[in-house]
C-alpha cells in the first residue's frame, strides 16, 4: 500500500514547516513517531509544559487511523513529559477523541492536523479532572486504544 510514501511526504512537509507549539521528537522509522506539543495561550492547566504524543502507524495508514496516545517521560529525565490533565485523557495517556476512532477518522487528516486538534482540545479545556472511572480504566485496561469503544457522550469539552 501507500503508507510508506505518504508518511515520508508528511515528514518532508513537517520538516519544512510546523505550526507553533508542535515539533517532531522522533521519526527515525515509518512505524512510530513521537511529537511534542505545547499549549500556547495562558491556560493555567498547561502552562510551561511540553507533552509527548506517540503515533503508531499500520500498513493501512491513512485509510485507517494511526494509534495516538500521550506517553510519560519521568520528571527527572532531561526532557520531562507528563500526561496532561483533561476530562478525555486517561492517566495512562489514552485519549478519547472521536477523530482517532475508525468511525471518526478521515484519510485527509495528517499527523500535523491530529496534533493541532489535540492541541486545541487542551487549549479549550478548563476542567482540572480526569475522565470518570479513570483509576479503574487504567488498572484494568489491557486493550490497545483502537480496540476500545468509547462513548462520545460529551461534545462540549
Amino acid at each position, binding site marked *: 500500500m*501507500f503508507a510508506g510514501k505518504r508518511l515520508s511526504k508528511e515528514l518532508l512537509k513537517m520538516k519544512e514547516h510546523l505550526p507553533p507549539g508542535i515539533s517532531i521528537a522522533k521519526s527515525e522509522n515509518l512505524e512510530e513517531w513521537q511529537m511534542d506539543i505545547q499549549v500556547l495561550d495562558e491556560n493555567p492547566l498547561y502552562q510551561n509544559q511540553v507533552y509527548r504524543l506517540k503515533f503508531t502507524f499500520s500498513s493501512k495508514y491513512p*485509510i485507517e487511523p494511526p494509534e495516538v496516545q500521550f506517553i510519560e517521560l519521568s520528571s527527572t529525565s532531561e526532557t520531562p513529559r507528563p500526561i496532561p490533565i483533561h476530562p478525555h485523557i486517561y492517566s495512562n495517556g489514552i485519549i478519547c477523541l472521536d477523530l482517532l476512532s475508525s468511525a471518526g477518522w478521515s484519510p*485527509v487528516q495528517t499527523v500535523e492536523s491530529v496534533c493541532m486538534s489535540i492541541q486545541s482540545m487542551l487549549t479549550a479545556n478548563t476542567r482540572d479532572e480526569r475522565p470518570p472511572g479513570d483509576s479503574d480504566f487504567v488498572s484494568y485496561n489491557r486493550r490497545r486504544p483502537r480496540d476500545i469503544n468509547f462513548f462520545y457522550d460529551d461534545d462540549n469539552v
Partner: protein
Amino acid sequence: MSFELKEKGNQLFKEGDYSGAEELYSQAISKNPREPTFFTNRALTRIRLEKWADVEQDARAAISLYGSKNASSLKSCWYLAQALLGLQRPQEAYEVAIDAYRASLAAKNLQTENLSKAVLRAKQQIWAHKETARLREMNGTLASVEALIESDLNRALAELQEKLDREEIGQIGFIEDQKALREDAEKNTQNVRDAFRIASNGDIQERVVPDYLVDGITFEIMHDPVITPSGTSFDRIGIQKYVEQAGVDPITRASMTVNDLRPNYALKAACEEFLNKNGWAVDW
C-alpha cells in the same frame, strides 16, 4: 510431471536461486507449453534476473494462453509493462499498462494498484526521453558530451558481456556490474546537465508540484482523479479503498458508495499536462 517441475521451481525461487528456478520452469514448459502459469512464473523469475527481453516473451506467451480478455492475464500484463520499461520502450509499456489498468479496475482485480504505478513509471520514462531530446537540441555541446558518456557506457557494457560469454563472471555479478555502470553513467549525465543548466542563465526551473494536482490520501500526483459528491477530487486508488471500508465521504462524512465517484476529466487533463512537462514529479 510438468507440475512437479514447477513446484520444484517455486521452491528454488523462494530460496532465491533464480537461475535454478528458471531452468526448472523451462523444463516444465518444454513438457507442457500450453500451461500459462509456467510462463508467468518464469517471467517473474526473469524479472528478478532482469532478463527483460525474455520476460517480454514469457509475459506475451502467458497473455495469449489465458486470452487477453481473461482477468487472469492482468498479472502478466504487469510483468510485460515492467519488461518494456526495462527495455526502454516506455510508449508500449504505457499502452499495455493503461489498458490493463482499465480492465483491472472493471474486474476489481488485485493488480490495479501495481498497474496504476506502472502507468506512472511509463509516463515518467516517456518524459525522460523527451527531456533528453529537448536538452540536446537546445545545446549542441551538451549533446556531444552526453554522446561521449553514452558511448563510454556502451563500450563498458560490451566488455562486460564478453566477460560473461567467456564465463569469467557469473550471471548475478554481471547484473550487478551492469547496474553499477548504468548508474554511474546516469549520474555523470545528470552532473553535466546540472552544470549546463547553471551556465544557461536562469533557465533553471523550480520543481514544485501544485497542491491541486496532489491527492489528499496518497499525497501523490493524481493520474485517475475522481470527484466525490461533496466536490473534492482524489486519486481513484486511495478513495476507493477508503469508501469501500468506511462508506462515507472523507470530508463531510455524508454516507456514499464507490458508485458515487465520478471521473474528473478536466483535472485529469491538467495532471497529464503537468506530468508531460515535468516527468520528475512522479518521484516527487
